[in-house]
């Protein structure tokens, strides 16, 4: 047996492949930094108190984006009020009540299908059903319902996953003490699953605040420098406002700073939401262990 066999022979193919993989993976980090960096650097100078709290002025080349911020908040609130209860209840029913049969399979595959529907198709659907058939008109109500349907699968899935991770022995222990199924779910299962359900909610907020296509024809206003009075009002919204400023403003060059600022606000929302989701996750995992 020669000693040579044990010595480092060339593993250059592995070294080469892994180096390449590392490079490619970190170029993805690079891409994110370029996108974020660019928007943060350019957008920072546009952001001011007036920008965040003022009305757009001068053909949207000056002033602020306050109505768009408020509009987006309305849409977030509206869609969550609609989707969160339904999503959580649905998740509970799927995980706690349904056995693995054709009905559950159907519901699950329909939920997956709904998750895969392109956002513009939600826009078409929302327009046909809420705006026209139900005659809500272009309104916060129509937009929120459309967006709510869009994030429903996210909430259902996270709820289901959260419930699944709760140990079965806890349920059995609760039954053994004479609790009903509903009591067990409310008092034992939900409190444990709660943080993960919350993360699903937070992610839905991020999704709703950034979507444009579903609100194009259901609620979004091109220019509306006032705040909504009721759920039947149209509103401006941040993502649509950015689209307008970038492609169809009255003076696209002059409104560039506004566009950078709006993009930055959107990015900040995404960053905050992600941080929040991670914080919630961490806080509760620490608390549990």
């Amino acid at each position: 047996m020669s000693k040579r066999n044990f010595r480092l022979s060339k593993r250059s193919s592995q070294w080469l492949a892994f180096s390449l993989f590392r490079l490619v993976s970190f170029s993805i980090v690079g891409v994110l930094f370029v996108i974020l960096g660019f928007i943060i650097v350019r957008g920072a100078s546009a952001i001011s108190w007036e920008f965040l709290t003022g009305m757009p002025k001068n053909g949207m080349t000056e002033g602020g984006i306050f109505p768009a911020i408020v509009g987006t908040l309305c849409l977030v609130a509206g869609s969550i009020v609609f989707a969160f209860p339904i999503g959580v209840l649905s998740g509970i029913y799927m995980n706690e009540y349904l056995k693995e049969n054709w009905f559950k399979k159907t519901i699950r595959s329909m939920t997956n299908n709904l998750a895969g529907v392109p956002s513009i198709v939600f826009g078409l659907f929302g327009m046909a059903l809420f705006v026209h058939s139900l005659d809500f008109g272009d309104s916060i109500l129509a937009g929120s319902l459309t967006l709510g349907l869009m994030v429903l699968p996210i909430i259902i899935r996270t709820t289901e996953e959260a419930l699944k991770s709760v140990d079965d022995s806890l349920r059995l222990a609760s039954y053994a003490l004479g609790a009903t199924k509903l009591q067990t779910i409310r008092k034992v299962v939900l409190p444990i699953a709660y943080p993960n359900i919350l993360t699903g909610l937070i992610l839905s907020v991020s999704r709703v605040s950034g979507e444009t296509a579903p609100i194009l024809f259901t609620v979004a206003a091109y220019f509306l420098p006032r705040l909504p009075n009721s759920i039947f009002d149209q509103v401006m919204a941040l993502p649509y406002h950015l689209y307008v400023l970038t492609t169809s403003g009255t003076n696209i060059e002059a409104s560039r700073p506004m566009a950078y600022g709006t993009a930055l606000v959107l990015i900040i929302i995404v960053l905050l939401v992600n941080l929040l989701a991670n914080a919630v996750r961490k806080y509760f995992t620490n608390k549990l262990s």
Partner: protein
Amino acid sequence: MTIRKLSEKLAVGVLFSSSTVTTLAVLFIIFFLFRSGIGLFNDSSVEPHYTLVVHKNNPIDHLTSQALMAIFDGHTTNWSEVGGKDLPIELVTIDEIASQYDEAALGESLEGVPACVEDYMAHNEQAIGFFDATFVPADFSGKHLVLPKISLADFFLGRSWYPTAVPAAQFGVLPLVMGTLWVTFLAILIALPIGLIAAIYLSEIADERMRKVLKPVIELLAGIPSVVYGFFGLVVLVPFIQRLFGLPVGETALAGSLILAIMALPTIITIAEDAIRSTPVSLKEASLALGATHWQSIRLVILPYARSGIMAAFILGIGRAIGETMAVLMVTGNAAVMPSTFLEPVRTIPATIAAELGEAPFGGTHFKALFTLGIILFVITFLINTAVELIKPKKP
């Protein structure tokens, strides 16, 4: 006791109803898309309330939308080209009538127009008239052409998309379908290898510290709104491409593909990573114990084992790219032409809907055509989801 039972029953009822919402939503989407879109194939492509008339001796009874377009665009100039007599074609609209007859003949509130139309059309065998139906007299001596209907073939095989063309709108979706496929195809071609590499790196090679950097990065990439991607593409990528290739415009299929590739990455990475992680450790150990390097084990054992999951990542990546609207709308230039190179503008199906629905009159032919595009998109994504469900390995 009974009250408690009753409330428990009630609660279960509420839970059950909630669980049906997604299913109902899908059914409603199907119903409303079809209801709003399906009428398209009964519609005439000619604007409502308008009519086409010719001289009574003209042997032509009907013209296709394409033939009409060609006449109106001046590409077809002789009746023989469309199967008629050897006469030059003269296109007559209300403007010609107004310039040929004096005000007395036309009448103060245009009440004389039908008579003028009758007179002019009766004397000009070469003429084809395109009028508001009210301007053609009831006892018109010439012939009304049968208005062309939009056929399935026109729609799915037509190569021109001019939804507001006069006199006959053209609803050929082929350029849009091809545009979508081109942009998606290149995007996946870029994103799949990169995504797969990143997934391998994350699941097999990276240590905990690297993962802690990469995971949030991918989550953030997934979280950035598509309109922000579009904005970034428009202000950075588009000018860059324009300069790099010396193009008249930078809004190109290439720009769309690059942005879409970035957007599809998180989907591909997450699913492929899950798939790779699902490979049993025992197989990896067996391979290493036989003297295979880690890289050989990845290539020869882990990736083959994970291939259905990787396939799912690929298909879902396509689904994500096909349906993407805003980013593509903002960077591809939106020219509804058959794509021939990645360095020219193209237009995708979602971008078409987003760009045109706002201007399409409610319930009109154009409106219906856009909903029919929506049906196409829906069917594609439905098929994609079904395919993924079929190939995805069943979790034990």
